[in-house]
Each structure stands twice: as structure tokens, then as C-alpha cells.
């Protein structure tokens, strides 16, 4: 929907903007992945939340307000003049669901980054995307020194639906991060009931 587009203004066609989320526990490499593929250094935006104190004695008649600033790192990849992809890292603290809702609105899909040393850190992200019907894949970021798990073991540990792809990646590398995004796009396409044959890949 367009706002403020009057009839006499020259018609400039705005690009199609696409949003993909990169989620996972604190320190799992979300911003690293975003930087690896973005055309510029990741940018940082923030939302300020005003929370009315919870658990305050109602009879006191005094509400405590506290403010919390939630920062989000994001990157951008432009494809020509008519298509731009935004990659948003979700806030590391899972309690900021308000911000997650805002980010997930209109998102094409999500990548859940996982660290095999702390697999449980990915549970909140996986739960969120399952509950909200956001298509996602799991990418296990291969940290040095981390024990290598077989992907079926990771799938089992995360209790994933069989159709959710699980893959290994190195979030520091552009090629690897590109493959993660392409895998997500193919997964979203499959969940739409079709599949694109990339031009350079026969059959």
C-alpha cells in the first residue's frame, strides 16, 4: 500500500522490499552472518519499549515505568533497482516478544542459527516461528572447537518437523552464508508448493 502518493507526482516505482530474519541465541553469530552477505556494514536500529511495571502493588496507585532499548542489527542486499533484501538479526534477549512480532510481520522466512554447544538456546526461536507460521530452516554454525554432531542428531535434539531443513554453515564466510539464504528461499518456495530451478543449475 502506498501512502502520500498524489496523482500529480511523477510515478517512481519503488523496489520490492523483502525481509528475512536471522535468529538464534546470544553470540551464535547472527550479526556475523548478516555482515558476511550484506553490501555494507550492518546497521543498527532500535525500539524503545515503555513497560509498565509488572508485579507492582496495584493498591499503591503508583505505576512504575521503565524503559528498555532493544537494538537490532540488519543488513541490506540490493538486486538491481527493483529488489532489495533486508536481513534482520532478532534481539538476543528472547523476552522482547513485542519486537519479534514487529520484525516477523511480513517476513518471508527465517534462519535459526544454532551452536551445538548450546542447542537449547535455539528453542525459543524455533518455538516462535512454529507458533507464528514463519517458514524457517536451522543452520548449525560450525564454531572451532565445537563437537561435530551429525545433522540427524541435531534434528532429533531440536525436535524439528521432518520438512524443516537443517544444514551446517560457517557464518563468517560469504559463500556459506549465501547457501544458507538460498536454502531458506528454496524451503519457502517448497512450502508454497513450487520450486524454482536456478538458471545455472540443470534439471
Amino acid at each position, binding site marked *: 500500500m*502506498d501512502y502520500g502518493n498524489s496523482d500529480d*507526482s511523477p510515478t517512481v516505482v519503488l523496489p520490492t522490499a*523483502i*525481509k528475512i530474519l536471522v535468529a538464534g541465541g546470544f553470540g551464535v553469530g547472527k550479526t556475523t552472518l548478516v555482515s558476511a*552477505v550484506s553490501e555494507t556494514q550492518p546497521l543498527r536500529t*532500535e525500539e*524503545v519499549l515503555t513497560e509498565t511495571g509488572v508485579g507492582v502493588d496495584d493498591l499503591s496507585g503508583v505505576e512504575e515505568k521503565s524503559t528498555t532499548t532493544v537494538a537490532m542489527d540488519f543488513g541490506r542486499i540490493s538486486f538491481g533497482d527493483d529488489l532489495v533484501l533486508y536481513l534482520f538479526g532478532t534481539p538476543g534477549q528472547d523476552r522482547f516478544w513485542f519486537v519479534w512480532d514487529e520484525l516477523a510481520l511480513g517476513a*518471508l522466512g527465517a534462519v535459526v542459527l544454532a551452536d551445538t554447544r548450546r542447542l537449547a538456546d535455539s528453542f525459543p526461536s524455533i518455538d516462535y516461528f512454529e507458533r507464528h507460521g514463519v517458514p524457517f530452516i536451522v543452520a548449525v554454525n560450525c564454531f572451532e572447537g565445537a563437537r561435530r554432531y551429525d545433522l540427524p542428531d541435531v534434528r532429533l535434539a531440536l525436535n524439528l518437523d521432518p520438512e524443516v531443513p537443517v544444514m551446517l554453515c560457517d557464518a563468517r564466510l560469504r559463500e556459506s552464508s549465501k547457501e544458507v539464504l538460498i536454502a531458506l*528461499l528454496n524451503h519457502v*518456495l517448497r512450502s508454497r508448493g513450487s520450486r524454482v530451478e536456478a538458471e545455472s543449475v540443470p534439471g
Partner: protein
Amino acid sequence: MPDAEPLWVDDDAGPLVRPYAMTGGRARTRNGFNVISLVLATAPAPQLEVGLTPEHLHIVDLCQRPLALAEVSAHLHLPLGTVRVLLDDLLARGLVRVSEPRPPTLLPDNHVFEALINGLRKL
């Protein structure tokens, strides 16, 4: 200021003071723009006029090319909510257009996916 907000911006408010002062105390926006809503100026930034702050003009300057709401927020170092309020003012004056993203379910066939996948491969 009889119609001003109650005095809740006290010492504890911290960083809230600046954004809220900039928006004249308004926190609620008429729009609920997506973080990837694209903002494009309709004309070069005008001279400072009554009712417009330097931040308003900064947005018009930045958005001579299309930028997402989150990018505007990042470049101005202002929270998303504050930028939404400022965009309301700019929309009311016809200084910007804002284009909301299409919901993924309404993306036209698979053209966009093809463009994304092939574009990523070429990066």
C-alpha cells in the same frame, strides 16, 4: 500546557527525553509502518519551516533515494517509534511517500524468488 502529557518524563526516563521532545511528546502514530516500509522523498528538502525539525529535513534529505524505515532510524540514530511519528508529519505535508511491503503470500508467482536466488548466487 494544559493538554500536555502528565509529567512522567522524570529523571528516570533517561534517553526517552530526546526522542519524545523531538516529536512534541507524541508517542502514538497514525501509521504502523513495517521496518522495511520504503520511504521516498517527493521533492528536495525544503527550508526549515514552522513545525518541521532538523530531523524532519534530514529524513527528506536521506530519502532522495528509497530507504527502509529501519535504515532511516539507523542513519538518524533515532528509535523506530520516533521515526514513525516524524513520518506522519512528513506525509501530512506531502514531503514523502511510504510504500508498505507486500505480504509474502501476495508476492507475484515465483519471479521474486528466482531473482533473489539467482542474485545471491552471483554475489
